[in-house]
């Protein structure tokens, strides 16, 4: 398994990745509160982007409703915690299967009845919107008035109940991102990964090569959905409040897909790089503007738009394929 992880990677790539990991591990030691908040956001988007990438980048299925899985994970863990004091890790054991089930539902509808491409994307939006409206009337989770987790001043970090300082969430998301990267690399270099890529490239040809495309597309949705739900758990316990209007909103789904698009759809490092570029630069921009006394509402969204335009025009495959070539890190799928 170790061999499969590193196979095809140059020594330079491994050294660089090690250095980045050390830097990321050490970051909280010199990062201030603000920078840490930004880094938490970055790794949140790197992780969710990686999960989304399994569907779009690997299996070629465009989901524009990944907020659904974030929301299911968030609400499952948070409501169980609020109502019964159940630890979020146990909540995840409920949330992840529920998210997977929701993904399977969408996948079954779409793939069984040959709904593909744009229509599939619309279906994912529709189900996320149903969830948003549904949760707005779901009184057990306080409907539209929002679900609040009890908050007090924490001196220590309770990893089991996810109650503590931002630095704990930082390390959790960093660990999740690294685990997702490794997991995706293993998936991509396995039989499943090859079949996903074949489906992405040409579904009819994939079927003619003996691939049960329904089965493998379902796998992609289910894995992606379950992975995404973990980000929802972190979201709930980091922000301590959940509103259907926010969690399930389509703009949340769009945010998730920006990092992998900018970084490079279908690449393993793209979602991470994209998250750094987008969130990192956007926050720097707002910070710099604030410093000179300019406060433009919506400047971040405008910046995202410009980034997206620039990438689509200049580097349609994303920044990572170009950058890895520049850095001399050629290797399959890395």
């Amino acid at each position, binding site marked *: 398994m170790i061999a499969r992880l590193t196979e095809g990677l140059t020594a330079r790539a491994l050294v660089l990745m090690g250095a980045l990991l050390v830097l990321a591990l050490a970051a909280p030691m010199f990062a201030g509160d603000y920078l840490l908040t930004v880094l938490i956001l970055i790794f949140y988007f790197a992780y969710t982007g990686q999960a989304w990438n399994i569907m779009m980048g690997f299996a070629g299925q465009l989901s524009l409703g990944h907020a659904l899985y974030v929301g299911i994970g968030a609400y499952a863990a948070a409501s169980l915690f609020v109502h019964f004091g159940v630890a979020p890790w146990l909540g995840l054991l409920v949330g992840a299967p529920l998210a997977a089930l929701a993904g399977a539902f969408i996948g079954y509808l779409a793939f069984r009845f040959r709904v593909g491409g744009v229509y599939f994307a619309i279906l994912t939006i529709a189900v996320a919107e149903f969830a948003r409206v549904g949760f707005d009337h779901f009184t057990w989770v306080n409907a539209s008035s929002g679900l609040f987790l009890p908050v007090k001043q924490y001196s220590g970090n309770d990893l089991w109940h996810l109650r503590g300082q931002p630095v704990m969430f930082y390390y959790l998301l960093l660990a999740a991102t690294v685990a997702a990267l490794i997991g995706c690399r293993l998936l991509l270099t396995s039989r499943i990964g090859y079949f996903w890529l074949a489906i*992405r490239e040409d579904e009819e040809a994939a*079927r003619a090569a003996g691939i049960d495309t329904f089965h493998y597309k379902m796998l992609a949705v289910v894995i992606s959905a379950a992975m995404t739900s973990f980000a929802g758990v972190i979201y709930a316990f980091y922000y301590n409040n959940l509103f259907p209007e926010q969690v399930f909103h389509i703009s949340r789904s769009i945010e998730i897909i920006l990092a992998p698009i900018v970084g490079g759809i279908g690449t393993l490092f793209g979602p991470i790089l994209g998250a750094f570029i987008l969130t990192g630069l956007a926050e720097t921009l707002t910070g710099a503007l604030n410093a000179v006394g300019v406060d433009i509402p919506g400047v971040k969204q405008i910046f995202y738009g410009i980034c997206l335009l620039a990438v689509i025009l200049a580097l349609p495959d994303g920044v990572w394929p170009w950058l890895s070539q520049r850095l001399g890190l050629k290797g*399959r799928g890395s």
Partner: protein
Amino acid sequence: MSALLSVDNVSKRFRGLVAVDRLGFTVPEGSIYAVIGPNGAGKTTLFNMIAGVHAPDGGEIKFAGERIDGLTPDKICRRGIGRTFQIVRPFPGLTVEDNVIVGALLHRHDVADARTHAHEVLRRLDLYDKRAQRASSLTLPDRKRLEVARALATGPKLLLLDEVMAGLRPTETDRMVAILRTLNAETGLTILLIEHVMRAVMALASQIVVMHHGAEIAQGAPADVVRDPAVIHSYLGAEDV
């Protein structure tokens, strides 16, 4: 030789159009059969029925003694029928090697194992040196051979080739013919091909089925078929008036 594939009284209609009309023939194991006929004769429709893209409206198709008509393309491939497409469709974004690995993984679970097998197949198809290239960067003759390689990697007992010679120069055609003959001779692979290039058909096929307007108008050994007046009239064309 027992029949590997038998097509019995098979029909297919698209709305009013009868694409294939009560067609029947059997392909013995280890043979090379060709289906020829003018454009629109129903050859590709016939292939699509054998490969599971369409279910026949009537008749039955048996492969290795079992009925396969109506099964999905992936199930049919898993039973042992590999196919190529008339308009080639390799996985464009993948390397030549990865294209063939996908096929090899059908009956193998280990990627390294599949890669080894893919290399064997690539050597057979003269593509080994190009294995690191993206499929989209290949020339048409190379892409045609890649299609055959991918289908072959799935380990078929029967290979369906839909106009793999079309668009090839004569030297490329001869190369493909040589590859297919060797395959047939060395591995006993049964081949059923649709072809317009008579040079290839005559060199390869032991038996020819001629289709016209969805129906069979002649069947037999190549030398006999090309002298058949009906075939000359509808397809080959008379040399003299």
